């Protein structure tokens, strides 16, 4: 297995998009999945419950120093940035917002580029801001695979549009096809190894 981690960033409309992506994805047991979805800082941590209904995997909201594992879905908690240590633990921080967001997709994608590098798949979905583009670029530069949702299929275009311009991703895919395309990417990467 070439890929160890699937990192997904989403903002406005992200939860609906996530549902479609995860529904068709067949290799969840072989990678760790990290979801950075923008939420209101005061929101209770309801995203874990929603995602649990989308996928037959253990879903956790990240706590500080939790260990990252395959076959598990990890969700960034509201109002914290998520970093990954080189011993595989999560660190949460409450440093300044990035792109007006905490959790910021850029912050976690940068950390994923640093830790997982070429074994990461970075994916950016719908959203109405510019978070994620910078981080996606770093994942690509580190040799990881990068995917952006086709803005024409996004509830909000700005985030995917910015990422396409800024990060020059490997693929731009319509929402309905992302899940099945993801399966192909993982299969063919396994064959080429």
């Amino acid at each position, binding site marked *: 297995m070439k890929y*160890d981690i699937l990192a997904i960033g989403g903002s406005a409309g992200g939860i609906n998009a996530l549902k479609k992506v995860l529904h068709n994805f067949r290799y969840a047991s072989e990678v*760790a999945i990290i979801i950075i979805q923008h939420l209101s800082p005061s929101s209770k941590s309801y995203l874990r419950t929603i995602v649990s209904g989308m996928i037959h995997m253990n879903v956790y*909201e*990240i*706590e*500080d*120093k*939790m*260990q*990252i*594992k*395959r076959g598990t879905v990890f969700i960034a*908690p509201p109002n*914290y940035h998520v*970093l*990954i*240590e*080189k*011993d*595989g*633990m999560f*660190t*949460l*921080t*409450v*440093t*300044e917002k990035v792109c007006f967001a905490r959790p910021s997709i850029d*912050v976690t994608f*940068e*950390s994923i580029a*640093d*830790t*997982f*590098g070429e*074994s990461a798949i970075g994916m950016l979905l719908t959203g109405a801001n510019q978070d994620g583009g910078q981080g996606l670029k770093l994942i690509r530069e580190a040799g990881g695979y990068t995917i952006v949702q086709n803005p024409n299929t996004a509830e909000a275009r700005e985030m995917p549009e910015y990422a396409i311009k800024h990060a020059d991703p490997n693929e731009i895919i319509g929402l309905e096809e992302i899940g099945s395309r993801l399966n192909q990417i993982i299969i063919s990467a396994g064959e080429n190894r």
Partner: protein
Amino acid sequence: MNDFDFKHNNEDVETFLCIEAIKLKYGYNFSEYSRAHIKRRIKGRLVKSGLNNILELTHRLIEDEAFFRDVLLDFSINVTEMFRDPSFFKYLRENIIPILQSYPKINIWHAGCSSGEEVYSMAILLKECGLYDRCQIYATDFNQKIIEKAKDGIYSLEAIREYTKNYILAGGTRSFSDYYFAKYDNAILDLELKKRITFAEHNLVTDGSFGEMHLIICRNVLIYFNRTLQNRVNRLFLDSLIKGGYLCLGSKESLVYSDVFEKFDTVSEEFKLYRKHLKA
């Protein structure tokens, strides 16, 4: 235990050297801080400073103490609010304060108090519960500069507007404006609130216990440490608490990962509130 094989790159090597240089030159030890956090802050300062790499930055901070002080401020995170997580303060008011009420004298330690917002929130809460005059609050931080700010108790009116909302959600029983007076764009907190607070420099990495506490509050401080250091500090908290004393961590920090977990009862999983065993 670890599913993945992570490689250390050149920047990790340079980050390590930078941390060693700071330790040798200035005596601050960040080697047991979260490495991912320290590296991110160093790289952030690198971009701001226009220097080319972490080694250049290291050289600069050895030569230039003022520059080092900026880096030090980058490492110590001072994002805080009054009545942050209002439901936590409401929980304290309704469930913990009534128990503390039974003690003739109450010691409270805010470890990593930053610019003081949470300490003053506690002072207000205790006042409204009629407990303040029996309390001694110790508010500590490793950063001298930020303690001075905490002592001032001056916050922007813009921030105060947010804090007012928090105060109401936290179950405040008066008008929040009773606790400050406005001057230009600032709110100056009532001097009365400081009466039972002692501000002091204390480094959780190197300093020990200094009293028998009934309640220790340390929220969103330990997240910047690695697990080894977290363990040591949690041990320090255990040793600093009376039997039956309470420890509050941040809402995404858990004692579960700590060696001292079995010495505590979990009072509230949601608010990460723990109680040291009565027969410890």
